[in-house]
């Protein structure tokens, strides 16, 4: 149970229940701020550039990317894995912290889940785009057909990916939307605008909030959450199997599933941190997303960073200990040293070294530095995927085939485009949806703000 004597007050400012609603819903009623327009404009420009890249790729061919006979995957898969990793934070927050009964998740989980949704949307574009014949992409579904019927290859990690990502997207979206239903009802009943009443009313599915519906709501949420929990582990494990199931040196390792899951949570938390700092700055949510929240995230990041460092070292050790000359070459001659040294050491620095600064309380309390470090983590995790995808493929078994990879402007544009999509999604979320789970905050408001211990009767 949350003990405020030990852990400090969670929601500051002596809020009443109606204060909570008013604070959270304020952005919905206020006129759209200038910064929103500016950022949204930039995001739309980025999306337009990305669309140009998408159009070109589909109309001309994958050849306009920097890939070659040896490096069949590049920016697209890097970005895909990166986005999926970022998406992990939402589910991790909602599920793991729910299971761990961390009350502080309540002010963050909604935003984190929204982030998941948009990140998975951004991620999902890449596997689509990187297909050589996107117009035949439906072959990947085992639907009834007149070819025999001919089915799919269920051994393929890419097929698992399709199943896993779509399940993940669906489960996260359901979970996220379900959490918002009571809040939509709150908006429905409190707004003065007729249009809003209509729209949010429709979206609230007729929520009434009596005892029975709360019981079902809580049960369903718990069930969805409970089932999504293994998804957090399985989705990125399956994504990692895209690599670890193959024979490519540098990919073919059993450490990948846990390593990827942890990495995903790491990058996800990094992104949550980035977004939360922006959010509380823009909307003055300091009372909800307190320094304590940020502090908690930084502590977790420190811990995960250590796991990441261990994973990196384990990889090196396994490469040596396996006795596989190909594996060892990839690690020593193509990562630690060699053509891709920059990427490798950027990854190590950003993921394993810089977050260690969080050991210092002063740094943890300095929001600016925390923000900068969170950006570093995002960059570092991007480079981790770059290192994994590109270095392994570029120099694999037969030296005669070795080739380098560097992205073209089209690939960069596609990446920027998805960033635009993500930012626009988040902005839309800020603008039109309750960014903090009102009912959940209300639920923990009392027990985490009064300095007496509270005993739950359950």
């Amino acid at each position, binding site marked *: 149970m949350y003990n405020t004597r030990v852990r400090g007050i969670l929601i500051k400012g002596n809020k009443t229940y109606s204060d909570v609603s008013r604070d959270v819903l304020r952005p919905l009623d206020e006129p759209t701020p200038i910064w929103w327009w500016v950022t949204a404009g930039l995001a739309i420009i980025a999306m337009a550039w990305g669309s140009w890249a998408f159009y070109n790729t589909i109309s001309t061919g994958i050849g306009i990317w920097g890939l070659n006979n040896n490096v069949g995957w590049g920016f697209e898969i890097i970005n895909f894995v990166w986005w999926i990793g970022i998406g992990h934070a939402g589910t991790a927050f909602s599920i793991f912290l729910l299971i761990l009964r961390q009350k502080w998740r309540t002010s963050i989980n909604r935003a984190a889940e929204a982030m998941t949704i948009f990140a998975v949307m951004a991620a999902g574009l890449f596997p689509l785009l990187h297909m050589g014949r996107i117009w035949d992409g439906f072959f990947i579904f085992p639907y009834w057909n007149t070819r025999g019927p001919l089915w799919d290859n269920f051994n393929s990690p890419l097929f698992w990916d399709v199943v896993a990502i779509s399940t993940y997207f669906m489960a996260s979206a359901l979970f996220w939307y379900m959490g918002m239903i009571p809040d939509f009802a709150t908006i429905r009943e*409190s707004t003065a605008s007729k249009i809003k009443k209509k729209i949010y009313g429709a979206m609230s599915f007729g929520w009434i909030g009596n005892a029975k519906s709360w019981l079902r709501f809580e049960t369903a949420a718990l069930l969805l959450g409970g089932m999504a929990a293994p998804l957090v582990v399985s989705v990125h494990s399956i994504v990692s199997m895209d690599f670890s199931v193959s024979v490519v040196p540098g990919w073919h390792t059993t450490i990948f599933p846990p390593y990827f899951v942890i990495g995903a949570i790491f990058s996800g938390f990094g992104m949550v941190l980035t977004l939360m700092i922006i959010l509380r700055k823009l909307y003055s949510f300091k009372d909800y997303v307190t320094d304590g929240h940020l502090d908690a995230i930084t502590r977790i990041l420190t811990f995960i960073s250590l796991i990441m460092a261990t994973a990196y070292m384990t990889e090196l050790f396994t490469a040596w200990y396996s006795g596989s000359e190909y594996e060892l070459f990839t690690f020593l001659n193509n990562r630690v040293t060699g053509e891709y040294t920059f990427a490798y050491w950027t990854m190590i620095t950003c993921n394993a070294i810089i977050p260690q600064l969080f050991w210092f309380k002063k740094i943890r309390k300095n929001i600016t530095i925390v923000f900068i470090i969170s950006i570093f983590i995002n960059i570092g995790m991007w480079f981790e995927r770059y290192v994994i995808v590109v270095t392994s493929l570029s120099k694999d078994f037969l030296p005669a085939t070795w080739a380098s990879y560097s992205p073209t402007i089209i690939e960069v544009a596609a990446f920027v485009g998805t960033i635009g999509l993500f930012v626009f999604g988040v902005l839309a979320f800020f603008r039109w949806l309750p960014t903090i789970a009102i009912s959940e905050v209300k639920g923990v408001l009392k027990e985490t703000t009064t300095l007496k211990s509270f005993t739950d009767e359950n």
Partner: protein
Amino acid sequence: MKTSILGIYEDEDVLMHAIDKLQASNIKVADVYSPFPLHGIWSRLKLNTKLPYATFIYGAVGAVVIFIMLYWMSVVSYPLKFGGKPLNTLSFIIIMFVGTIFIGTLFTFLTYLFREKMYPGKQVVLPDPRSVEDKFVIVIANADEMNEQESKHVMKMLKETGATEIKESTVNLHV
């Protein structure tokens, strides 16, 4: 037309005690509207749900169906050889695992909506709209069947237990 008596509370702890007291004095609390879930209330009102069983069944059936589907597709219907592996491979497990979650999640959510009779665009009228904001509403049903004394008693009890506002409502109950 059915009428109910509503007791509106400001604080969830007060509400809990109020329910205890009302039930102790044999007043049946028909329903409680609250802005967030009150965990103590379900045992007091003797509410429960069978949703978890449904989820379990969905998951179990889903897993079996997916296994049969995979087996049929890759062993019976059109067996193709991949990489020297047997037709019936371990990789089914992964798809079964994720597929089970897919089916379980989707159907649980649908069942939830079905049981709650919720759907997009459903219109509802609340006994007191503030119950989704910051008020806790105790509903005493069938006020029209009570005689005046009884209803007075109810109101008195509500008042005693800390209701800040008491009113009568003709809104249909959602129980």
